[in-house]
């Protein structure tokens, strides 16, 4: 057993009062000077950094169709196994393959962002939008249409590209 010696208290500490006054000075300083750190959430929305990983969206091509080429890399990378898709031939000379169905079960998603990292064509992204509460389970299965619709949460000009370029990452 190792005995640990208690540090000797000085006389000033033994009579308590000066130390108590010091403590009181600290608390009053916090009370008068410090701004509260509380986020008043529903009234004042919380501002998240631009690389925040929130709601998923499928990025659009200029025509409005999804950029995804159904390569299934995101599906493979996803540690929560929450992406499922069915690929099909779009009958479009410019596009070789497209997801007929593309679903994310966001109740299982852990918001790791691996899907967007894996994607070779920058087709999926986690936007900084985070208000997605609902009281129905169905609302958490994001279908392709919904994922495309989620583009309304990003500014008009950024719908066809990734919002977060490398520069933004570096900035943060």
């Amino acid at each position: 057993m190792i005995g640990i010696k208690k540090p000797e208290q000085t006389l000033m500490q033994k009579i308590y009062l000066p130390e108590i006054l010091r403590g009181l000075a600290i608390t009053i300083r916090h009370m008068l000077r410090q701004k509260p750190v509380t986020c008043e959430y529903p009234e004042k929305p919380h501002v998240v950094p631009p690389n925040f990983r929130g709601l998923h969206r499928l990025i659009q091509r200029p025509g409005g169709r999804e950029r995804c080429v159904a390569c299934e890399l995101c599906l493979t990378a996803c540690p929560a196994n929450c992406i499922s898709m069915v690929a099909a031939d779009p009958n479009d000379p410019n596009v070789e393959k497209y997801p007929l169905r593309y679903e994310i079960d966001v109740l299982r998603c852990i918001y790791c962002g691996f899907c967007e990292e894996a994607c070779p064509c920058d087709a999926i992204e986690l936007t900084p939008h985070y208000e997605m509460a609902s009281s129905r389970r169905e609302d958490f299965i994001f279908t392709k249409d919904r994922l495309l619709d989620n583009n309304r949460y990003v500014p008009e000009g950024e719908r066809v590209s990734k919002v977060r370029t490398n520069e933004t990452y570096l900035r943060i």
Partner: protein
Amino acid sequence: MIVPSLLLELAPVLVKIFGAFFVVLTLTAYLTLAERKFSAFIQDRIGPNRVGPFGLLQPLADGIKFIFKEDIIPTQAHKLYYILAPALLLVPALMGYAVIPFGDYVEVAGRLIPLQIADVDIGILYVLAIAGLSVYGLFMAGWASNNKYSLLGGLRSSAQMVSYELTLGLSIVGALLVYGTTNLRDIVVQQTAYWQVGSILIPKWGVFLQPLGFLLFLVSAFAESNRLPFDLPEAENELVGGYHTEYGSMKFAMFFMGEYTGMITMSALLTTFFFGGWHVPWLEAAGLSRNVAAILGVGAFCAKTGCFLFLYIWVRWTLPRFRYDQLMKLSWKGVFPLALANVFLTGVCLYLYSRLM
């Protein structure tokens, strides 16, 4: 015409009783809000702000919540004592106000009315005796719940209360020696005098006459009203309450009100003994009429009491809790001998003073 004159006698007393009751109970309710608000500010938070503007209706919401909670009496509890205990804690705390003077005389319809419910000569003794009663409430609650932890909690608190009651009484003996009276109104009146230092008038407040006594009384008052750093009876976070573990609903609220009312009593006493009660320094020079001065005095009394209440809250959110042995050591080896020394020193000083003058 006996009835009208009786009414004339009674009316001011009744008004004062109801007024004091109303003010103290409202203050108690709002003190809980103040506690939460100030704790929030000290911890860089905002505090309750949902009910009414700035959360000002919070005490009301709390009260409604407490009333509508299910009122459980444990099957094994001693019913009578279980129900009596919260009342025994709250009532003495409220009774203390009966003798505390909160203002000078006011003149209403040619009659002088003292702003004090009962002007008794044994004021201090009455207050101490009444304060001593509250320990029964604590212990009874612990015992009647028929829960071993409550019982231990009750024991813990009674030991603390008894130890600090002693120092509470002893620490004002010095002040009593100086004032030479136990009448609270006389004590305040004596503090309205001044010392002349050069051209500056210094009020003869008790805190200047008895600095050590004031400090010891302050410490004992904190312990007596079970406030941090001496809130061993409650110690929510490590000992899970204590005597009131088995209580719920309005009975629990009564324990709380008892604690806060006790705080107000102690603050009022501190003001009366050591800070000149209703006395506003240097106001006499302004030459105000009696009633205006009295009302200003009531304001001053409330302000001084409020400062002590703030001190209570401020200290609570600054200091950690004492360990039980430290608590007892502080009482018996720290405050008690110092209080004795204070009595002795005061006696010697008074003797020398009377010899030299």
